[in-house]
């Protein structure tokens, strides 16, 4: 497995290990996970070959997920990285690759209402991240064959306890009183509770389907304001305070982007036009095909996920989640924070 340092990667590696698979993880820095590790750049085919040798399957999760930074970094991590994984798998004789992609690879900014998995389209992608992932998915699917099967999984907005991306950022802003509702807050957004995404990746490893892309989500779209309130409530905070009209938000976002570019800042800007679009247009998916194909259904509902998150916040100190790997103990009813 590549990229085992994020929430989804750690959980997936742990779940594979827990069920008795022999797991090797590949990333730049030690993960602290209890499994074999190969350290290095995923874009280096030699490193990938070393990690992939003798594996039955590879899960390629490593990616640069961000909203700032130059294109070259995205191209390197996401396109070169995927090419290197494809080459490494081929030369190591790995028969199955699960390539983790993103619904944004096919998203041109319009509302997605009960959408399927449209083909990846770099030309329509709206950020460096989604464009690089679109190219990567196209190349991954082009490399698909019966001997080297490739299945692309596009989890949509994965969240859960220990998430440093989505949840932590929202909660931090709510805590600072800087979380606003943009527009009506009514756009329906589908999300994926982390353990459901883990289950889906495991099902993808076990499946014999290949040569296609599948969107994975909870299949429970909610108005974006309800999701933000749910996350805040779980952290014991009030929901978004006040609202900003969409045109104002877009104008501010444009200004922020220009400033970040002028200053060459590399930290995450507080607002971007991409984010405004994400928060004000519907994104939800028809999950029937995915569920049938993978023989998978989400085990944890949205509300159960909020409850699990609330327990995690209640048990954990309010300091930001750190390095550890929380084992996938949601279904056992208890969440632990390692590290």
């Amino acid at each position: 497995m590549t990229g085992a340092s994020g929430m989804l990667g750690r959980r997936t590696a742990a779940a594979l290990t827990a069920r008795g698979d022999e797991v090797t993880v590949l990333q730049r820095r030690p993960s602290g996970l209890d499994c074999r590790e190969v350290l290095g750049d995923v874009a280096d085919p030699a490193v990938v070959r070393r990690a992939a040798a003798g594996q039955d399957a590879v899960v390629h999760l490593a990616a640069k997920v961000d909203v700032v930074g130059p294109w070259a970094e995205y191209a390197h991590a996401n396109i070169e990285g995927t090419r290197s994984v494809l080459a490494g798998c081929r030369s190591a004789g790995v028969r199955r690759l699960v390539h983790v992609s993103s619904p944004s690879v096919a998203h041109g900014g319009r509302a997605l209402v009960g959408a399927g998995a449209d083909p990846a389209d770099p030309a329509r992608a709206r950020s460096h991240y989604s464009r690089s992932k679109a190219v990567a998915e196209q190349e991954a699917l082009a490399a698909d064959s019966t001997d080297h099967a490739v299945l692309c999984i596009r989890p949509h907005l994965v969240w859960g306890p220990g998430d440093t991306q989505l949840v932590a950022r929202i909660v931090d802003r709510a805590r600072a009183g800087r979380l606003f509702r943009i527009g009506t807050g009514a756009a329906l957004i589908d999300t994926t509770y982390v353990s459901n995404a883990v289950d889906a990746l495991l099902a993808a490893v076990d499946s014999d389907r290949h040569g296609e892309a599948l969107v994975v989500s909870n299949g429970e779209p909610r108005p974006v304001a309800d999701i933000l309130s749910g996350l805040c409530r779980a952290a014991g905070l009030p929901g978004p305070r006040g609202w900003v009209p969409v045109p104002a938000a877009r104008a501010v976002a444009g200004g922020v982007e220009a400033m970040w570019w002028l200053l060459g800042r590399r930290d995450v800007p507080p607002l971007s036009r991409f984010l405004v679009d994400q928060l004000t247009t519907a994104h939800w998916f028809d999950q029937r095909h995915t569920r049938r194909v993978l023989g998978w259904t989400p085990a944890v509902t949205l509300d159960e996920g909020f409850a699990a998150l609330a327990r995690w916040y209640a048990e954990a100190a309010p300091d930001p989640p750190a390095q550890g790997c929380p084992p996938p103990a949601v279904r056992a009813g208890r969440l632990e924070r390692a590290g």
Partner: protein
Amino acid sequence: MTVRPTPAPHRHDSAAPSPPAGMPGLPAHWSRRVPVVDAAGVQHTWHVLDNGQPATRGTLLCVHGNPTWSYLWRRLVAGAPPGWRVLAPDQLGMGWSERLDSPRTLAQRVSDLDRLTTELRLEGPVVVVAHDWGGPISLGWALRNPDLLRGLVLFNTAVSQPPGSAGPALIRLARMRGVRDLACVRSPTFVRSATALSRPPLARAVRDAFAAPYSTAARRAAVGDFVADIPFETDHPSRSTLDGIAHDLPKLDVPTLLLWGPRDPVFGQDHLDDLRARIPQAQLHRYERASHLVPEDAPEYVDAVGAWLADLDDGARRDATGSSDPAQAPRSAVLDRLYDRAGDPGPAIADVGRTTVSWDLLGRRVDELAAGLALLGVRPGARVALLVPPSAELTAAAYAVWRAGGTVVVVDRGLGLRGMGRALRSAGVELVLGTAAGLAAARAMRLPGQRVVVGPVAPAARAMLGADVALADLARRGRAGPLPAGPSVDDECAVLFTSGATGPAKGVVYRHHQLQAQVDLLRAAYRLGREDRIVAAFAPFSLYGPALGIGSVVPDMDVTAPGTLTAAALADAVAAIGGNVVFASPAALRGVLATAGGLTARHRAALGGVRLLISAGAPVPSRLLRSLREVLPAAELHTPYGMTEALPVTDISLPGIEAAGDGDGVCVGRPLPGVDVAVSPLTPAGEPDLPLTAQPAATGEVCVRGPHIKDRYDALWATERASARDAGWHRTGDVGHLDAEGRVWIEGRLQHLVRTATGVVTPVGVEQRVEALEAVAAAAAVGVGPRGSQQVAVVVVPRVPPTRRDGALAPAALADEVRSAAGVPVAAVLVRRDLPVDLRHASKVDRAAVASWAERILAGSRG
């Protein structure tokens, strides 16, 4: 004689172009090139669309008009039922067929088509499908090939100019010599305008596809020739051919389907009437929103043609008119109870504050008017629009029309002038009977036919309204005239229009035996007898009094706005006639409750004599019925379930509602004696396609059988066939189930089902559970997203109305409450100040409108 105004274009067909790739809906493999030698010995190459299916059941020969081409038929080529080969040629000089050196006459074109089908070795059975000028050509072909012909499907076309019609103005304009050349040949004006009539407009790519073969003046030569070949003049070279086709048309005694677009500026109602007169067996479906290019404006025609072809094969051909030999049928008894009371001075109809008409007077008045109508030219079968509010005059006029053998046509003012006009024109009204306001509306609607004015109107105003005669004069004239023979039980008596809550209002045809059965059912269900007196605060019931043999009164109210009924007006009406049975709609009853404070002791005494309240027209909340006990202390409270197409179907009393308790939907009680109710259960995809069953629990489309259900939908063949696909039954479009005690529960409308990834959700049960919440005044459960993966959104009207600032999203606490009450997963809870309701009953929530609003909001729009 037609003279080609432009120099003949030279032949450039050695390389006849093909349809370019990429036209929407037109795969290249349908195109064939067929060389055919014409009567003069010259070979021409035709372009033909061919679906390539073996013709095991037959062939559809599809013939386009001017200025289109076979592209018009692409959906039929793609969607024809199995076993039907589809051949759609481009006329010579048109589309992608070879261009011609000189114009061709109608006779030549018929011969050309005949030679083409010979070359194609066309064998029977053949169904001719034709549009526009393709009509005369293909009908000419059909008359030459009667042995091959199995049927006709005709879209807007004509074989003659109906008497009195000067010919469609547009065509005449296009035929003026200079104009024709300029508009049809030298410029693509005509080619382009033919595809510009559709509303909503056709897609740009489709319009371009229609124009593609007519890109240059040389390629448009035949477009102008076609226009020139329309024989308006008696000495036109094609005149005798066309007259011959028109004359011989009745010989084509084959099943015929007319699919008509009423918004066509070229072929109007006159042409439709002319065709129906020549092809009396034709079945008709009007696509109310379609213009000239019906196959573009009503793509669903493909399904209608498929269904019609299936009936051809099954031999299950339904009789278009359905009338049996009237001489054999017994006389209608609808007027019997009126005549039984000849000489009776008791009140038959009272108008509060105006007149009271005795039985004796009403009987005589009906006869006088019937004779007067006959003198005016009303023949059996004539359709008469009644634009008169409920009153003694309306009742007398309706019974007189029946006595004269005519059919009354009734529309709801709630449809608005445009909707009413469309409905009345579609019904083929020959006579309009209206008050001054009614006739003014008729003028605004541009209705055809004679006019009779009801009520006092000054002669000058009468002329302005276009009234031919006043009702009172008609009666006076009728005293001297002979009484027409009365109607038989099989004669049509009424065309009643639905409220049009879901698309254009549909005309529902009843015959006398069905009306009789309905009257008998009402008598039996509510034990109505001579001693009863009806107060009809629900407009349709004001007409039933004489047929029931029961006196009736209409309260002082605006019947088109049921909420205007006050408690005092109801009490006055009860007092006026000694009424003891009240018919009212829920909206009217809400008005009564709201004004009950103004009742005097005398009013209360009068209302105390009411034994029965029948609340009809929409579901009645039991809360409302319970509150009514205070106003009508002695009344049994009943509410029937039914619709314009079948009324009543079931009935339930207030104790019955209370005994049924809560369930998934509204309990509407048990079927009335003689009425059967079954459901056609839903498939997992949510389609009501499983065989009818009366088994409890299965949820499906509610179907009704009984002697009183509609005869058919008027001029809506495809709708009728779908609604009557189980012989003898009417499909209501309502979804519900039967319970173990035989009670019917209504769960919503078929169009309002929410088809989620995990199954079908019916809205009414969800709405009831949500409306039970303290904070909620009203709720609508709707689906958002594509069918099969829809999500449920609940739109609520909170008791504390939201302000504009609050936005559309429900506050978290309310959303949580609604989610836990709903009983199904709910994606979003939205709030509104009110819900859109239908005009007629002001109580049926327009869930389709709510759904599209919710879709917009939940897609991220600001609404």
